[in-house]
């Protein structure tokens, strides 16, 4: 049996790892359009700040150790499911018995002129290398970051640590999709404490990158233009599905998959940021781009190729903020009855609906996070501990006392 894995991020690597663990003889080819060993994006900032190569998290020799035919710098341009064949940019064609599409996501910018030169991003190691080359050239002392989502904030903090003068353009509020307004303000204050400048409103609503060949500035809705030595776009993510057009593989925002993570083609699976799965809590179709989802999906795709027939139970909406020096985590929804605890410089919020915990946003003090998130995942009736949830010293003993723990199982 021969499987080709398109992509060498967490999802592709996990699929390869699982296939190898379960089947020593399986032929595995893994392709990455980037010129590096497989890497883990969450560790990129640490790498650029300290030089520690933690992003090569499975080791640079992962392919050899696992007997994987790994080809870096190989961009796949098309897939022909009827011939079980893919085509590389070089024109070379490769055939497979099974295909795993794990090509991840990239920067999505609804801002006019975003394909111009001079606009950097931090979505991949290649993009990171280009951005850092510019910073290290010594020609930049200021940076303008468009967008204040997860990656925007991470880049802002990284560039600040590199002693640049950093300004963020925020249309609505900091990490709007992840955080409620109050927690968002909490994070904004921390950013401002770290001397990251934050502009909001119409004067910060980027609509275009003016400039003839290269972008020279950012133009706002108000007409105003702002510029800096370094322009960074961090406006959102978009699954890398372009190379699938015309293949017959069903896509919308991302690649459509069934409950086994199989596409509409029986021997083609998809995993990671590129898939459009469903939210575990709400059942809505969604791509929650995070590392745990990529790993779970890569693993499941690998197992299902081997015939396990395991059902995916939905992706999880959770993330955390690194590099703020203050822990911030977000999981689940922000609707229903709100439980709030503001104390000693920390802000802890939980949301309860129909006696079930449905979401949490914890900043400053994240103890209990694992308990909350597992209660959310399991949909446990939390009535026995409802009144304790807002206590500052709520802890696992409450779960033990109420035997709720029998439902709190790792997954």
């Amino acid at each position: 049996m021969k499987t080709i894995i398109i992509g060498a991020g967490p999802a592709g690597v996990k699929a390869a790892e699982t296939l190898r663990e379960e089947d020593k003889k399986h032929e595995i080819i893994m392709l990455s359009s980037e010129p590096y060993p497989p890497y883990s994006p969450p560790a990129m900032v640490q790498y650029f700040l300290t030089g520690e190569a933690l992003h090569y998290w499975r080791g640079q020799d992962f392919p050899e150790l696992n007997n994987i035919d790994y080809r870096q710098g190989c961009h796949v341009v098309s897939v022909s499911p009827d011939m079980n064949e893919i085509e590389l940019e070089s024109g070379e064609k490769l055939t497979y018995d099974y295909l795993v599409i794990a090509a991840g996501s990239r920067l999505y910018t609804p801002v006019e002129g975003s394909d111009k030169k001079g606009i950097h991003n931090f979505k991949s190691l290649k993009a990171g290398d280009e951005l850092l080359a510019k910073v290290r050239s010594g020609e930049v002392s200021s940076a303008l970051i468009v967008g204040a989502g997860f990656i925007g904030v991470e880049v802002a903090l990284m560039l600040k640590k590199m002693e640049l003068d950093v300004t963020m353009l925020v249309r609505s509020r900091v990490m709007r999709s992840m955080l409620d307004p109050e927690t968002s303000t909490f994070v904004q204050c921390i950013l401002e404490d770290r001397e990251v400048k934050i502009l909001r409103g119409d004067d910060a609503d980027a609509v275009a990158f003016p400039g003839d060949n290269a972008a020279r500035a950012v133009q706002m809705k108000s007409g105003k233009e702002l510029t800096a030595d370094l322009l960074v776009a961090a406006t959102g993510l978009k699954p890398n599905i372009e190379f699938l057009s015309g293949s017959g593989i069903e896509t919308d925002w991302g690649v459509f998959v069934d409950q086994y993570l199989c596409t509409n083609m029986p021997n083609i699976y998809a995993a990671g940021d590129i898939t459009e799965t469903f939210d575990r809590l709400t059942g809505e179709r969604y791509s929650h781009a995070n590392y745990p989802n990529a790993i779970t999906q890569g693993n499941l795709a690998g197992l299902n190729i081997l015939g396990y027939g395991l059902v995916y139970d939905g992706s999880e909406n959770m993330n955390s903020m690194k590099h703020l020096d203050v822990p911030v985590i977000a999981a689940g929804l922000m609707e229903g009855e709100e439980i709030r605890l503001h104390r000693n410089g920390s802000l802890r919020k939980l949301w309860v609906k129909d006696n079930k915990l449905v979401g949490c946003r914890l900043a400053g003090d994240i103890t209990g996070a694992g308990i909350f998130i597992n209660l959310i995942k399991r949909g446990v009736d939390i009535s026995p501990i409802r009144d304790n949830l807002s206590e500052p010293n709520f802890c696992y003993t409450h779960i033990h006392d109420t035997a709720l723990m029998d439902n709190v199982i790792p997954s």
Partner: protein
Amino acid sequence: MKTVFVQPDRCVGCKQCEVACAVEHSQSKNLYQAVFESPKPKPRIFVGPGIYLNSSFPNKCRHCNPAPCMAVCPTSAIKRTEDNEIVLIDGDKCINCAMCAMVCPFDVIRYYNSIEAIRKRVVALKCDHCVARQQDGLEPACVEVCKVSALLFGDINELAQKASSKLARIVSEIDTAVSKEPLHLPDHLEAWRSWGKSASKLAKK
């Protein structure tokens, strides 16, 4: 294999295990010096209050297999020892991303500056089953100091035979803690499971 067994009903909430754990993970390994150390040594076992006035529970890493924390660590900082018994965090690789804390259902991971990491940065810390002490033939510090046998150390099968039905709860906890996972059940968990099941049957008779 040897492990730390928890008999929650016996715990009186004296927090001696917390102190012993912090001292064991200090530079000096001496209580009176440890309190002046920087970074300040912290426990990896937590005895917190519960629903009732006198409830307490010594909560520590269960060294799950498979371990949810290990699966989500984006730098592979979390590994299992070769004999499969202990889940360890390598502070040098930790980027303080909190993914592990988000998935640990027992809430036993904390973030502090640590002597275990280069440049003493803030990293994820949790129970390491006192690997260093075990190599010297000693039992974990928390077990040694627990005066009421709420914490026991030994071979699972032997302890299981000696244990009172109070253990059934904690054993079945581990039982459910792994039952959803389709693959790779190691020997020691099979032992936890089968004992948990037979003990529950006995309790019903």
